[in-house]
């Protein structure tokens, strides 16, 4: 029976490695997972650029205004990508978990968890890009309302960023002030 319990066998196999090696391997997985968040701003900015092209083709006179809105909106949409990049590079080059004492499996899981939490960055990236695209589209249609549209767009983008910041806080807590290690 024991031989067929693959999870136990896997965990036993995992524990046969050196403690530091397990944490470093988990950090590598975490760093890779964090980078998945880079998809969000890419899709969002692409959407905004597509909408910008549409807006300019409908109304070429409002092209400069549409570009201004798109530029500012796309710049804000990039934020979650930068945050995930920071977490990923910290896991790779300034890993604080290597020197943490406590059960190796908890520390390793924390490294993976820190990377996993940053995947949430996809949401704000796509959402902010969507808002930038819609803002650009509407400025193209109604250039006179630029200031109101821009303000509403940024209000939406600022709110959309919140979940990305929450994700980063959880990642930082898991790396620098992990409460789980103290519970053992």
């Amino acid at each position, binding site marked *: 029976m024991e031989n067929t319990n693959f999870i136990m066998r896997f965990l036993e196999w995992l524990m046969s490695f050196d403690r530091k090696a397990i944490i470093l391997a988990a950090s590598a997985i975490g760093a890779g997972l964090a980078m998945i968040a880079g998809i969000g701003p*890419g899709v969002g900015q692409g959407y905004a650029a597509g909408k910008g092209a549409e807006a300019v083709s409908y109304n070429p006179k409002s092209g400069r205004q549409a570009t201004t809105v798109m530029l500012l909106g796309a710049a804000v949409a990039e934020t979650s990508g*930068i945050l995930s990049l920071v977490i990923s590079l910290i896991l790779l080059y300034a890993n604080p978990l290597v020197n943490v004492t406590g059960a190796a499996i908890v520390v390793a899981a924390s490294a993976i968890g820190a990377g996993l939490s940053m995947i949430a960055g996809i949401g704000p990236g796509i959402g902010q890009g969507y808002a930038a695209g819609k803002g650009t589209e509407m400025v193209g249609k109604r250039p006179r309302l630029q200031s109101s549209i821009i303000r509403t767009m*940024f209000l939406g983008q600022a709110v959309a960023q919140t979940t990305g910041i929450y994700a980063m806080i959880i990642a930082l807590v898991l790396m620098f002030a992990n409460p789980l290690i103290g519970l053992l």
Partner: protein
Amino acid sequence: MDSVNQTQLKMLKNALLLNGLFCIIALVFLENPITFVVGVIFGTTFSLLNFRLLYLTLNKAVHMPPPKAQAYATSRYLLRYTITGIVIFISLKADYINILGTIAGLVSLKLVILKSELFNSKEYFKNIFKRKEER
């Protein structure tokens, strides 16, 4: 000067002001402020160049058919993302650059955009909480 360039200039001035403030705070409160200031300068310089690159990309993208513009903007984003990665990597590796300063410099432009375009009208926020009849 057209509106897009004016906006860029405004963002540049405000970003420099905000980062100047970061540097002053660092000089007053930190034990080793020079590394932080170097980080802020490094991050801000890259952030402004990144913003300019974004403008050049989008300026080109708006003259393309929408599907092509999407693909072009996304591919350019990946290029900028890679450069951002290199900047953060250098700050993590170099002892004379504080990573927190670099991150502050990188994110400051987004704060400046939100401050100058969102939090610039009290009336807008008052109207949100007013009833329709009061407006």
